[in-house]
Structure formats: C-alpha cells, structure tokens
C-alpha cells in the first residue's frame, strides 16, 4: 500500500500535533478501561486482569496548518468523532470547529486528518476521499501507539494519496512521505520539560543529583558509541577492507585535533576558581544554618532560665556571652569570605546577605 511519495511536497510536523494525537489516544484508551475490567474477569476466569484483550481503539481527528508553495507545515490538530455506521467523520462538528479555528488562526487551513494504528488501511480511503472536498490533496498522519523500545524513530508516518493505475483502473492509494520536525521556541520548552520529568518526591538533593548524572551518563554513552563506529571504520581502512576515503580522513583528523579540550592552564584556573566559590557558598549556608540554630537555642535557654535573672547574673551573663560569640562568628566569617572570594557576583550577593544581618 505504501511506497515512497513522488509529489515533491516537503512536510514539516510540529511536536504539538504528535502530543495532541497521543494525548487523545491515551484519554480514550484509559476511559475504556473501567468498563472493560468486569468483562475481563468474567471471560478470563480470573485471568491476568490486563485490559488489553480488546484491540486498541482508533482515534480520529483533523490536522490544520499552513501550505506555502511546496512546503506543508502542520501546526495543530483537533479531535473528531468517527461514526462506525457510515464510516465517516462527523461533518457538521468538523465544520463548526473549522469556523472557530479560523477566527483564532486566520491563516490555518485544514490540511488533512489523523488516526492511530500500525498501518494505513483500505477503509481509511473513504475518510480521505470525504475530506477531499475541503482540501484537494489531504494528508493522513498515522501514529503507531505500540511502544517498541528498540525503534529509534518516531512512530509517526505521513501518507499522501496518489492516483495510480492498478489493473487498468486508476485508483487512489496511500503513499508514504518523509517529513521533518519543526519546533517553535514554546514547543521546544514544553517538550524539554516533559523529557526531564523528575519523580514527584524528588525534592532531595540526592535524587536531583542522580537525575543530572544520569543525563550526562546517557549523553556520554551516545558519544562513546559514535566514536566506536569511527574507530572501527578507521581500523578497517588501515587493514584495507575499505577503500581509503581521503576527505573523511581529513575530517577525522581535524576533529581529533580539537581533542585535548580541557588541558590548558587557563581552564584549570577558571575551573578551580568556580569550584572554590561554590564550596564557599555552601560553607556560608552551613554557617548561617548553624548560627540560626544557635540563636534559637540561646532564646530557649533564656526563656527557660528567665526567672533566675535575680538569682544570678551568672546565667544572664553566660547567655549574653553565647549571643555575642555567635554574632562575632558570623561577622568574622563574612569578612573572611569577602576577602577570599574574587568573584564579583558572589561578593554582591554576600553584600545583600550582610545587610540583612
């Protein structure tokens, strides 16, 4: 059914569309589950309780966007109801939605429709033809909801319809097209946010540190696998299995020349300075915590022994001593830190803290 397209149109897909389609599918699937559960237990004799005995639902909707010349850019999408009896989408609703969207986004047109599943089917052609009166060449965006961990690409494919002559009859068939992902800054931020979801009780420093390190770990792993590929290729070239490709060798040599990237003396200086500044700041935070704890202790001490002020200037004196010692400690530490740190930003923040005291 799907060969590669030859219409020459370039497709640009925004991540909002993909997120919308998967959200629609997830909502429908999860809404199906509670009604399925009693069914399952009845039919499976107390079986595994997994609610995937029915085939996954297919969701349908419309995609909208802009077409400029040969470039089709798909920006947004909305959901539509599918009527299984007439095998068509809900037309009046579609038109109402189209009107509403036109008011908000005057430049967006209906470019096509979407659905979920693993491959395009014959029945989809009816829907496709029905949309042809709105847009003479609609696109069909298909999302495959099956999670395949080994697959590296997005499970999204874009189909166009082409008139091919099969057995002497001109028929419309779906042909696959390639597409690129195009993002706006807002979309990039939200996708980034979703990708970095931390566990909800991840307030503690350790889990945040672990998450950060895991990110670095996977990045280095990818770099490692790519260098391995280069390494094998060069080894094969040396042995003579692969013919010597000079331009590639030149590029690799220029890459390798950038390599001792952190060796210089200037880097060491800057790095150590920043490292020391960070340590100083955490030291300062610790000191502040300790002095506030000591302050609390002194207050509690004084309230507990308040009635004894007549009995002994001794306790009042010791209390004043404690307070003075703690204040001196804090001021001394501030002085020392001021002199030690050379970073201008750091000293200005210390200024603000000092004024607070």
């Amino acid at each position, binding site marked *: 059914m799907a060969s590669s397209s030859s219409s020459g149109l370039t497709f640009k897909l925004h991540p909002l569309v993909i997120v919308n389609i998967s959200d629609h599918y997830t909502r429908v699937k999860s809404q199906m589950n509670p009604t399925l559960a009693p069914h399952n237990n009845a039919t499976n004799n107390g079986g595994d309780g997994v609610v995937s005995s029915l085939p996954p639902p297919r969701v349908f909707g419309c995609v909208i966007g802009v077409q400029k010349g040969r470039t089709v850019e798909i920006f947004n999408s909305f959901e539509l109801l599918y009527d299984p009896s007439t095998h068509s989408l809900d037309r009046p609703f579609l038109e109402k939605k189209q009107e509403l969207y036109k008011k908000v986004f005057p430049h967006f047109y209906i470019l096509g429709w979407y659905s979920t599943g693993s491959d395009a089917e014959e029945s989809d052609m009816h829907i496709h033809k029905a949309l042809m009166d709105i847009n003479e060449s609609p696109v069909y965006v298909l999302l495959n909801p099956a999670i395949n961990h080994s697959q590296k690409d997005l499970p999204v494919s874009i189909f166009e319809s082409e008139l091919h002559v099969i057995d002497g009859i001109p028929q419309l068939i779906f042909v696959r097209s390639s597409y690129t992902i195009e993002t706006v800054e807002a979309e990039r931020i939200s996708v980034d946010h979703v990708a970095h979801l931390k566990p909800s009780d991840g307030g503690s420093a350790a889990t945040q540190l672990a998450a950060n390190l895991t990110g670095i770990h996977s990045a*280095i792993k990818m770099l490692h696998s790519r*260098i391995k590929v280069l*390494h094998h290729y060069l080894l094969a*070239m040396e042995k003579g299995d692969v013919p010597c490709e000079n331009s590639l060798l030149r590029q690799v*040599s220029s890459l390798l020349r950038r390599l001792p990237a952190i060796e210089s003396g200037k880097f060491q200086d800057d790095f150590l300075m920043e490292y020391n500044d960070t340590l100083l700041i955490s030291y300062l935070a610790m000191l502040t915590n300790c002095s506030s704890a000591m302050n609390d202790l002194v207050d509690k001490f004084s309230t507990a022994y308040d009635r004894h002020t007549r009995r002994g200037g001794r306790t009042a004196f010791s209390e004043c001593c404690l307070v003075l010692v703690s204040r001196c400690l804090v001021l001394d530490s501030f002085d020392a830190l001021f002199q030690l740190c050379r970073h201008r930003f750091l000293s200005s923040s210390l200024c603000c803290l000092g004024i607070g005291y």
Partner: protein
Amino acid sequence: MDIEQRQSELIDQFVKQASAASNTSAISSVIVDATSHPLLFAFSEILALPNVLQLEATDEKFYLDLLRLFAHGIWSDYKSNADRLPQLVPDQILKLKQLTVLTLAETYKVLPYDQLMQELDVTNVRELEDFLINECMYAGIVRGKLDQLRRCFEVQFAAGRDLRPGQLGNMIQTLSDWLSTSENMLVSIQDKIKWADSMSEVDKKHRKEVEEKVDEVKKSIFKKLHTVSRPTSTSEGMRRSALNLVE
C-alpha cells in the same frame, strides 16, 4: 565539514582533468592550476592518480615534488628546497602559507605570534593578523581567537590536511584513547550515582534516629512532669523540678 563539501566538486573536476591529460606538460599545467586555486586545499586524490605518479620517471619530476610539497609540506620546506622546485606564483605562495598555518595548528592549539611570524616570513604583527583574518578565517579553514595581549592565536577548529601514511596509525591510537577515557568516565559516573543514593539513605536513617530520640526524651520529660506536679502545684515547685531536670 563544509570545506570538504566545497572542495569535493573541485577535486572531482581536477581529477578528471588530470586523468584526461595525455602528456606530461598537460599534467604539469593541471598541477599548477590545482595548486593555485584559492579554494582547494586537498591534493591527495590528485596525487593518487597513476598519470600523475608516472611523472616520477620523467624530466618534469619536480612538478610531482611540488604537488607532494603542497599535500604535506610547509613554507620552510619550500625555502630550503627552492632550487629543486619550480618558481611559485603568488597564488601558490599564499596557498602554501595557508597550508603552513594548518600544519602548525595540528600540533599546537595556542600558536604564539612570534612562531607564526617566523614560519610565515612575516615581519610585523599587523600583517600577520591581516593574513590570519583575511586568508585563513574568512576562507573558513581555521576558526579561533586572536589574543593580542598575550600575542597568541588560539585555534578552535582547523581543517584537515592530506594525511601522511604514518598519521593513520596515530589517529587510530588517539581514537582508542578517547574511547577508553569515555568508558572510564561512564564507570565513574555510575559510581557517583550509587554514592549519591547511598548517602541519601544514610541521611534518612540518621534523621529518623534523631527524631526517635527527640520523641523519647519528650515522653520521659512529660512523665516526670506529671509525676512531680501532683504533690506540689506551686510555681516554686515547678521551678525546682525544672532545674532538677536540666541539671
């Protein structure tokens, strides 16, 4: 990488010209064209052609030497062998100097002005900087920063020159070193993650212990207060009992 793309068409064109050239003078003129072309920095494809290698045996051998010089050598090589090589046109001199900068960038990342001036036969800093900016950076073969205070040129990126036969082994060695460093890095990161997790476990346990102790002490104080307060309910009695507790 875009330099390679720009050069690939030129390389193909010159390779075709050289293989089509029938006699030695035609080949030598192709060589002269190739070495003076302002955008071409890669000569090993032309060097590999059998027509060109046949020049070894003829009188025009020095054109082959010239091509070899442009592929692997630098400006000072030319000066020392000037009698054996044909006279260079200004375009070729410029190209050879650019290639010299590339070779220097191979070995050092920070090139002092003095060394550059010596290698390129340039007398003052202004000329050197003009050469670096106009001929090297705008041509895209080198990217870097010029530091006037410390009189050096920091190279961030330099295009690759043609490889000498021995350099492939070095490159493979560097790649395997890089691989082992990144593997070690991965292992140490995993250790750090485990350390962070275990430290957080220890911290949680410690916190729980401290809270349990605080609860115990609170309970024991309440018990003592309750037992003491029954016989004497005056404020004096409370004070004395509080003192007893603290001491």
